[in-house]
């Protein structure tokens, strides 16, 4: 059951991720990316990270990607114009990527023997309560400091987006 669930959503995630990379139109890539994020959210549930799964949907799929789609719509970005790419990229791109993937998979398989397995309900420490407790004790400092980051993001977007400088 868990294996089937994993295989289905891993497959969706990989296909959608490939789609992000090969589609020429930004909006098609964006929709595929939402697909990746959605299937990752399901996999998070499998890993017992219910809060993160929901946060993934709210933050990534519901806010970040909406911004992307919004900008694509606003700029009316069309399909990518194909240029003559350098011969090197054309010849080496795909083989290099496949080699890199193979290497990564090899590393991961070698480092992690199959003795640790995942099944639904195997870890239940990812509830909102557990996250909140850790956030306000052990991770109090990063939590407070990261609020500064959000302030910077707001300020930065305003600085760059305002009509006039003075």
């Amino acid at each position, binding site marked *: 059951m868990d294996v089937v669930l994993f295989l289905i959503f891993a497959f969706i995630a990989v296909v959608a991720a490939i789609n992000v990379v090969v589609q020429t139109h930004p909006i098609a890539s964006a929709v595929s990316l939402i697909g990746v994020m959605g299937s990752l959210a399901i996999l998070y549930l499998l890993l017992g990270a219910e809060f993160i799964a929901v946060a993934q949907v709210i933050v990534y799929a519901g806010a970040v990607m909406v911004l992307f789609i919004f900008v694509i719509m606003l700029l009316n970005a069309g399909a990518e114009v194909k240029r003559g790419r350098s011969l090197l990229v054309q010849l080496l791109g795909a083989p290099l990527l496949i080699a890199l993937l193979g290497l990564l998979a090899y590393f991961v398989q070698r480092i992690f023997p199959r003795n640790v397995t995942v099944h639904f309900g195997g870890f239940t420490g990812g509830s909102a309560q557990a996250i909140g407790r850790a956030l306000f004790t052990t991770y109090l400092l990063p939590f407070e400091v990261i609020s500064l980051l959000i302030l910077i993001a707001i*300020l930065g977007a305003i600085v760059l987006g305002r009509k006039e*400088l003075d």
Partner: protein
Amino acid sequence: MPISNFINAGDLIRFLPEIILSVAGTLLMVLDPLVNRRSSNLFGTLSLLALIGALFGSVAAYAQAGPAFGGMLSVDGFATFFRMLVIVVGILTVLPSYRFLARQDAETGEYHALLLYSIAGQCVMVSANDLIMIFIGLEISSISSYVLAGYLRDDKRANEAALKYFLLGSFATGFFLYGVALIYGATGTVNLTLARAAITGANSPSPVFIGVAAALMFVGLGFKVSAWPFQMWAPDVYQGAPTPVTAFLSTGPKAATFAIFLRIFMTAFEPIGNGWEPLVWICALLSMTIGNFAALLQSNVKRLLAYSSIAHAGYVLVALTARSDVGTAAAMFYLAAYAFMNIGAFAVISHISGKGERYQNLEDFAGLAQKQPMTAALLTIFLLSLIGVPLTGGFFGKFYIFKAALESHLVWLTVLGLLNSAVAAYYYLRILVMMYMHEPSEAASGAEPLTVGLKAALILPALGTLILGIFPSWVLDFAGKSSSLLK
């Protein structure tokens, strides 16, 4: 568990510089719409005060040295050294910004707020002892720098600089973060001290695993410090960004990134040093070589200094390759010296470049010595220090680095590094020749007289460069003392 395990009054004092900077930044941001900004230098003055306050704050924090917030921060000599360095860089950035922003009609509180936030982020970075905290500090510093690079948003080049900086910076962040994830996977912790204990401990994880993590982090940090082969963004970004911002980017964030580079690689990854040493060796050599040879071909001074900053990143990597406390101390000293001389040189460029940053070419410096002898003399100090002439900070910086390299038996790297320094002398001397031996150009004759802020912005780094060159032991002793305590 009681809350006092995670926070207490001492922790707040250890966190004082960051608190001062972020509160001041927020104050500036709020003040911006409330004051008539044509009339005053209020924003610049306020941020100067905040930076000086933060300088004292970091001294006060050092008086309480120790881990803070349950091991998230480690306020030690190393952290204090770099905290003070980035704060001083901040002061030296604000000083030329006064005149620069006024000339571009772009003086706002937001500029200074972003600058203060960025410095606060760097302070978090250098004092953090936990990879997640380092990551957050890095992002605070980076995201505000992206905005600063694109601050003059009607300028095509500034946009492009911001875009490239942003895209490459985020790309690097991805790599760094993947490295953090693997460290977490390998050791079950992201605290550097605990991770080191896990790596050296009995059940140490597979060295391949740690190696992959180290490689990913190296890629991420390599991008941020513009080391070969990740240097391609630096010239465009440094050329396109507003000049005071360029001065800041090439010194503050760079010093802070090198600080975490040293901290991560000299604590957590130190046990697998034999693995990464050859990698860093090649990167150091090629960064120096490519930076120096590319700089030979440049006619734009900002671009030239950008390539030279790639080369200087290479010198610091030589110190890292040495893998010793002496090397770490040498890197700390060099970064301080580099900050002074580079920021001074950029301050001169920002003074010469004029409204709209028109004058950035080598020819625009022609005859500066006739028109403004003082400016030319100060630029000469900075350039001589960049070359590494004795009695300047640059000389001792290079000296200590190559000494540390020799002590670690890196003979070839030292020889090639020294050859590189000889090449570098050529393009710095070109600027000097241009200033002293040519007829005044349009830019040199049109340059405004130095304002008080600008004078301070030039004289302070010149003093710094000379002090480091004449009394190097003042800084070096402190660096040596704190580098040996890093683990």
